[in-house]
């Protein structure tokens, strides 16, 4: 466990020192979302109808922006070699990195989302399921994204390749994330989509750290 806590503490401290990186992601989320009312027009009922989907799509794109850097910096400066040689199981190292990523990008997105939902006229009863859906969905986004980020290490234009690899895998999260917001607006039970999102998170937690570790081993070979 010492490896997990040491690495998590380091990544959080680094993120705090270079807080501009996390801020960029949140700023992108805000700007991309605010573009929609301008593009579609100020009609409250139209915006309310698409609010859930818009928030999820922009949140996914914002998270994608930050995934690019998840392992690249450590790979380029030689830290990754040392982390592979840390003596701890590599999936544990991955889990520490992913936890730090979620805390520095996923959590700020969740906190920011109600403010942006306001600009999209999301009905009052939609706020709770939207934040809950983001809370359950963003860990999956970080975990699945880590696999992609590890696979594209060492390639040129890794960022573009990463989005091609990872975005299709986000479709299930997007569908059920949006569904949980829409369900409450249309007056249907919301538990179903939320439970499925929780299921995705558990599945990603059990599979992704191992897949990421295998990809990282390939990268340092």
């Amino acid at each position, binding site marked *: 466990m010492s490896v997990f806590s040491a690495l998590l*503490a380091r990544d959080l401290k680094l993120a705090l020192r270079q807080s501009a990186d996390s801020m960029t992601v949140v700023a992108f989320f805000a700007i991309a979302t605010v573009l929609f009312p301008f593009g579609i027009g100020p009609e409250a009922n139209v915006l309310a109808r698409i609010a859930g989907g818009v928030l999820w799509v922009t949140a996914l794109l914002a998270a994608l922006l930050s995934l690019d850097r998840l392992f690249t910096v450590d790979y380029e400066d030689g830290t990754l070699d040392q982390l592979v*040689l840390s*003596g701890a199981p590599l999936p544990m190292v991955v889990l520490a990195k992913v936890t730090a990523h979620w805390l520095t990008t996923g959590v700020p997105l969740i906190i920011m989302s109600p403010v942006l939902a306001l600009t999209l006229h999301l009905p009052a009863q939609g706020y709770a399921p939207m934040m809950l859906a983001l809370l359950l969905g963003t860990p999956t986004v970080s975990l699945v994204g880590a696999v992609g980020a590890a696979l594209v290490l060492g390639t040129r234009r890794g960022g573009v390749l990463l989005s091609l690899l990872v975005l299709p895998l986000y479709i299930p999260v997007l569908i059920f994330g949006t569904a949980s917001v829409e369900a409450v607006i249309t007056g249907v039970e919301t538990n179903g989509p939320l439970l499925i999102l929780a299921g995705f998170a558990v599945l990603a937690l059990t599979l992704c750290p191992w897949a990421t570790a295998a990809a990282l081993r390939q990268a340092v070979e």
Partner: protein
Amino acid sequence: MVRRMDGDFTPRSFSGSGLACRRGGRLVFTGLAFGVAPGGALVLRGPNGSGKTTLLRLMAGLTPSTAGALAWDNVPIDDPEAHAAHLRFITHLDAIKPAFTVTENLGFWMSLWRGRVDDANLARAVAAFDLTRLAAFPARLLSAGQRHRLALARLLVAPAPLWLLDEPGNALDAPSRESLARAIAAHRAQGGMVIVASHEATFVDGGETLDLGVFTPKTAVHWSEESEEAQI
């Protein structure tokens, strides 16, 4: 996973036999054997591209060998994580975070390897490579030589029996080379082992030499990961 929290380690020998490595379709070396006894040192020599870096990465367990096996006390390694816990590897890349101070950089490695930060030991590692004056400076302000000294100080924050050093003399001035020679001598006096890839290994007294040129298949063109990494 065995990781001792105190200052010493059980002396064991480290060896390899029948090692071969293929990189990018080319056989870099084949039929390579080596052995280091506790307190011993091995200097890897050979022309550029003869596979010194590849061999060190193979010894660390990062690069898989095409044939042959590594062993501790003649017992082949089956758990790469336990093996990794027994070594420190200094590569061409310094693994330094520019946003952290010298002390914070070393403190991270210490907490990673030992589970806690021990200020006295940390100060000793900083002093061993004459970084005390710079301890509170962010690493981004360091010169190339100072960065390399900071990377070398990592060797001293947590004990491990085997040191793998890839061209450790690069970018070091004469006093720093002496610091490195002293650190290596002290490590060997405790039963530690050192394997150095270097063209001028002045910091190792009485070590054995392994000339990698001997193990290069004669038909091959000289090209390897080493030359590829140098371009980055």
